[in-house]
């Protein structure tokens, strides 16, 4: 029994190592969030709005990260602007307008519903419908074949019985 223990330990060592790494990564990620929260606010509500807005805007420089998760130069500046505008008492709509006027729709992670973005919004639905239509067609065509194959008339059944008997006999 005593030998089993070290073996098990060795078996689990890679997992332990992985777990340690994951925990280390999670811990090392904390300072980034701390940097985001370095701004001071008067109320909890202002801070919530700041966090919400920084999550909604896309960093223009780094392609696929929001402002919260980016440490790039312009992302920092934009977070500073958001903080300033919140402290000035501007509404979320005003702040969004400010960003749109300068960086266009790209800045929004959730694109607005406009004539230009309608395909972006409903394109996947269109593909789903087209796929469903194809699948329906296949199913409809497949059904009669199944039925014909399953139903044998009496002569066919007789033949099948004989064939099965032939298979069994030689052994």
């Amino acid at each position, binding site marked *: 029994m005593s030998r089993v223990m070290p073996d098990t330990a060795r078996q689990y060592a890679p997992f332990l190592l992985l777990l340690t790494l994951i925990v280390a990564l999670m811990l090392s990620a904390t300072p980034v969030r701390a940097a985001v929260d370095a701004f001071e606010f008067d109320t909890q509500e202002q801070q919530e709005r700041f966090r919400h807005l920084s999550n909604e805007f896309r960093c*223009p*420089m780094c*392609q696929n990260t929001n402002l919260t998760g980016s440490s*790039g*130069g*312009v992302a920092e*500046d*934009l977070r500073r*602007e958001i903080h300033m505008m919140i402290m000035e008492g501007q509404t979320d709509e005003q702040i969004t307008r400010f960003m*749109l*006027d*300068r*960086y*266009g729709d*790209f800045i929004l992670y959730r694109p607005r519903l406009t004539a230009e973005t309608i395909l972006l919004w409903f394109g996947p639905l269109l593909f789903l419908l087209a796929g469903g239509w194809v699948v329906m067609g296949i199913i409809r065509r497949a059904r009669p074949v199944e039925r014909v194959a399953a139903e044998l008339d009496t002569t066919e059944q007789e033949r099948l019985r004989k064939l099965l008997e032939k298979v069994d006999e030689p052994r």
Partner: protein
Amino acid sequence: MSRLKLFVPVGVFLVLALLLWRGLYLDPRTLPSVLIDKPLPEFELPTVEMADVTTSKDDLPDEPFLLNIWGSYCLPCLQENPIFMEAAEQDLVPIVGINYKDKPHLAQMWLEDNGSPFDYSIVDEDGRLGINLGVYGAPETFIVDGNGVIRYKHIGVIDYRIWENEIMPALAAVRAEMAPL
């Protein structure tokens, strides 16, 4: 009719291939500027050359000019500098710089080391003018007409090919429009 249906997958393939082929040549990093045909934002900032005097929109050239976003930390800016130097020597077009998110003394050193093609460089240390211009990193180059309206934007480094094929034609178009009839 059912014969024709056999070609549907080929058709789908061709359409997809065409779209993907086109996608190969799209650069996701060049975002279309929403500021084209909009006036330059207001500003009141010192220049790299003169720290104690502020300059504003009114001091900009009253003919079409280039507005170049640069910084001493920016390697592509160093790469495109000779083109601007040549243009400045030949008096092709006035070039105004915006020293974006940089330290003025580093900017001065950079200009001494590499030469300045700029009439002057506006100091945008905190990047706020940059934000108002929709800038997301140096280098970026605007063509501004004599009325202070942005007419063209190039994102990224300018090489000779881009200079000849994009910048100069765009500048000529703006000039032609500005010329008195």
